[in-house]
């Protein structure tokens, strides 16, 4: 079998494997659901994730050890990952192939030539790594913005799969939504469409992971190069060169993605994959100058400094950045989150959403809870997000830890924030309407939402009694002088009150009478001409801040839609000491 055929099989295999892992990232027990599938494997193989987190945390989180395998293989064989494994690379490869299929050989050679701008990716890598290596604790991990594995993971999981499943309903019973996912799609689509301009545009010019491989494959033991055989300089080797590394001339090893199209294209067996350097010469190092390196380093440092000027990690933190349960304190969280979207994908209730720009530039596409989206806020008995987080930005907590049970009793439950009641919008508080859906749905025991009974005299609710007549079964009929809407007070929530504070439940009403339920009422208690008040019994919700865990079920269920009457904000979250609200007693 030809080596390019083997490469194609490898690409198709890894691409399908990637898609399969996307599909099975659904909580459930069936074989096509999450039941031990290594859905993070591609993210773990990605050395940019490993090196990024090493720079920010000075540790290598154990599942990321997989990246060592990639690094070792790259050192031995070169950028095999780009040409053989990377699902995003394979996609670019395929689209680029389609786009240039009908072009003339000379045009193809022209398209696949080396361009000076290919060094942009190295500068991007330096910018990202400078931010990650920022002195002191202020580092941030932003590689995920363009790191191809997180990029393709979130694009497939949050956009493509979600749209396809809209009609299939396979991965979710109800439609799933991701706020601002259009931007994720726009980036993805742009990257794909750029292949129409230049094949593997993203890989050649933008990919920070490719840049990282370009830096480390300087040691590659085997390389593409010309053998000392006679070369007729037909340049067919450059016709389909995926990396734009110019194998006909002075080959640029750092750009070579090991597609082997040169080897396959050469009619004279000049190109080889060998340990000896190319007889036509080779350029091992990436094409970046010392000045360029220094400039991007300094730019990276200042860029992060500039982002941090918004004080989004300080007093100006955005209250809607509600992190999933088990998320690390914000600074540490930002040093680990790679914006891959696995937590958003796996969340069974769809409450975890990609953040927009509100919480600061660094916050883009990191997970936040939006209780207005999804099937029911953050479910009490669920810790799926932490279990799938590839970098432990969300720790893999247990249910016991989340709920503050067992050995975590003293620590108490994890609070993601606190619910606040908007009494200007709440039905029982502002509109004399009974409701307490929030209380009903509060999953905490004892409930963090409790009620206080309040009898509110309704508008035009003071009536004048005209007469009293006894009825059967302990009910009493009061005729009144006023005009009433029949049955309006018969809902079981209305009461009739008199001056001295006595009160009876209204069971029925006609246009000019109301029926009340009472065993001992007489002309003495209610004389003709006396005034009665029609009151509605309200249970007004209150929040017990010590019990509230900020799960957002109340906000999700609140019938006052649009802007809910009870809303969670991140204040009071247990993960950061400086956002606590409660005094520890």
């Amino acid at each position, binding site marked *: 079998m030809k080596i390019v055929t083997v490469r194609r099989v490898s690409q198709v295999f890894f691409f399908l494997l990637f898609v399969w892992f996307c599909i099975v990232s659904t909580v459930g*027990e069936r074989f096509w659901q999450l039941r031990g599938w290594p859905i993070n494997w591609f993210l773990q193989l990605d050395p940019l994730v490993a090196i990024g987190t090493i720079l920010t945390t000075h540790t290598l989180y154990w599942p990321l050890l997989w990246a060592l395998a990639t690094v070792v293989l790259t050192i031995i064989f070169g950028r095999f990952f780009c040409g053989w494994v990377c699902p995003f690379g394979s996609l670019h490869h395929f689209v680029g192939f389609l786009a240039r299929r009908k072009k003339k050989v000379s045009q193809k050679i022209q398209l696949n030539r080396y361009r000076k701008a290919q060094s942009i990716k190295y500068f991007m890598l330096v910018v990202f790594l400078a931010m990650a290596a920022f002195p002191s604790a202020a580092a941030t991990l932003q590689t995920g913005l363009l790191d191809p594995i997180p990029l393709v993971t979130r694009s497939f999981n949050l956009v493509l799969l979600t749209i396809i499943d809209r009609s299939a309903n396979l991965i979710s019973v109800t439609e799933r939504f991701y706020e601002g996912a259009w931007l994720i799609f726009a980036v993805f689509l742009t990257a794909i469409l750029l292949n129409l301009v230049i094949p593997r545009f993203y890989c050649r010019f933008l990919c920070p992971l490719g840049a990282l491989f370009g830096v480390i494959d300087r040691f590659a033991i085997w390389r593409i190069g010309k053998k000392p055989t006679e070369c007729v300089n037909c340049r067919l080797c450059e016709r389909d060169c995926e990396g734009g590394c110019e194998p006909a001339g002075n080959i640029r090893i750092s750009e070579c993605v090991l597609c082997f199209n040169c080897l396959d294209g050469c009619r004279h067996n000049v190109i080889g994959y060998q340990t000896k350097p190319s007889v036509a010469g080779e350029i091992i190092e990436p094409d970046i100058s010392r000045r360029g390196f220094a400039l991007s380093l300094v730019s990276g440092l200042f860029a992060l400094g500039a982002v941090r000027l918004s004080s989004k990690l300080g007093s100006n933190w955005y209250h809607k950045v509600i992190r999933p349960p088990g998320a690390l304190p914000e600074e540490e969280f930002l040093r680990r989150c790679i914006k891959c979207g696995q937590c958003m994908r796996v969340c069974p209730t769809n409450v975890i959403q990609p953040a927009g720009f509100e919480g600061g530039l660094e916050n883009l596409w990191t997970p936040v809870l939006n209780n207005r989206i999804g099937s029911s806020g953050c479910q009490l008995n669920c810790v799926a997000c932490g279990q799938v987080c590839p970098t432990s930005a969300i720790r893999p907590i247990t249910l016991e830890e989340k709920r503050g049970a067992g050995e975590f009793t003293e620590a108490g439950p994890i609070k993601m924030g606190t619910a606040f009641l908007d009494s200007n919008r709440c039905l029982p508080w502002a509109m004399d309407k*009974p409701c307490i859906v929030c209380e009903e749905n509060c999953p905490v025991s*004892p*409930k963090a939402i409790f009620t206080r009974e309040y009898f509110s005299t309704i508008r035009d609710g003071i009536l004048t009694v005209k007469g009293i007549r006894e009825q059967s079964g302990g009910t009493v009929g009061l005729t009144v002088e006023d005009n009433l809407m029949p049955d309006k007070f018969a*809902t*079981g929530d209305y009461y009739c009150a008199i001056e001295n504070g006595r009160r009876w439940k209204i069971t029925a009403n006609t246009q000019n009478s109301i029926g009340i339920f009472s065993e001992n009422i007489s002309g003495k208690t209610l004389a003709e001409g006396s005034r009665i008040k029609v009151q509605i019994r309200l249970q007004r919700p209150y929040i017990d801040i010590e019990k509230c865990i900020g799960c957002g079920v109340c906000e999700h269920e609140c*019938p006052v839609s649009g802007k809910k009457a009870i809303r969670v904000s991140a204040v009071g979250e247990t993960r950061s000491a400086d956002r606590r609200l409660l005094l520890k007693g």
Partner: protein
Amino acid sequence: MSNKENNSFGRRRFLARAGKAGIAIAGCGIASYLLYDPTGPRPGVEAEDLVTLADFSVPRKQGQTMCIVQGPDRTKTVNKVIELLGGIERFVESGDTVAIKPNVAFATPAMLGATANPELVAEVVRLCYKGGAKKVIVTDNPINDPASCFTLSGVGKAASQAGGKVVLPKTHLFKHTTLTDGRLIKNWPIFYEPFEKADKLIGISPIKHHHRAGASMSMKNWYGLLGGRRNVFHQDINTIIAELAMMVKPTLVILDGTEVMMTNGPTGGSVSDLKRANTMIASTDCVAADSYGCGLLNLKISDLPYLAKAEEAKAGTNNYKSLNPIFATIS
């Protein structure tokens, strides 16, 4: 010569082009005529293809409309209540498709009693098959995430293992309904499709404290049939529960008072919220069942206005004693 040829060719081409133009113009004209709307959009929602939930009830048998069995073991008590009401054959005919509507509202473990007991649901599924059912559907439109509710409550697994088919509330399974004589259920989406195909309907619900409604039992269980923004109905909880009892005419309801949620309902969250009452109630009249059930929560019938409302609407009787319920005890 060539000039003439050119001319004739040009004429032919012109005629062909004119023909195509004519067809295009005619097409535009016909399309405009067919799509012509002289009034424009009107306010309000047009009445959709409204559906009505079928009547699933079986003929009444004097003295066999309600049964209460005391005992700690749900499997035994549920078998007994059904036996005393005339056996499963009275409720399920050979070849029937039976829909079972357990209360699976919350994603909580079975031991917390916020959802219908899985063993009880499984036993009823088995009984239905014993009675000759062709297919048994187990379905609900929960409050929490549907898939999680069926998984965590254990109802999904128990029902499937007993041979039941779990149907999750996918969006396309909802249709709009209007309740005749109803005030609240008007052009409202209900979880319809699983019940459209069913011949019989059995409700299974625990007895739970409910801060707004007083209690959540077999009538409140039908809340799970409502779709849309159903929470708005909490403004008039008694009317909506009574209307649900009017809308749903079940074959049988099973009200499980083996363990009763006394406080912190309807979600519960702690075993300390539960109290053992060892009571299994079954009735063809859900109003009567609830009228008995409220006693286990230490509530009077008058504490739950929806019972009187349902009786008034002739959805059932809140005077369960008038049905002469059968009482039995098994160990």
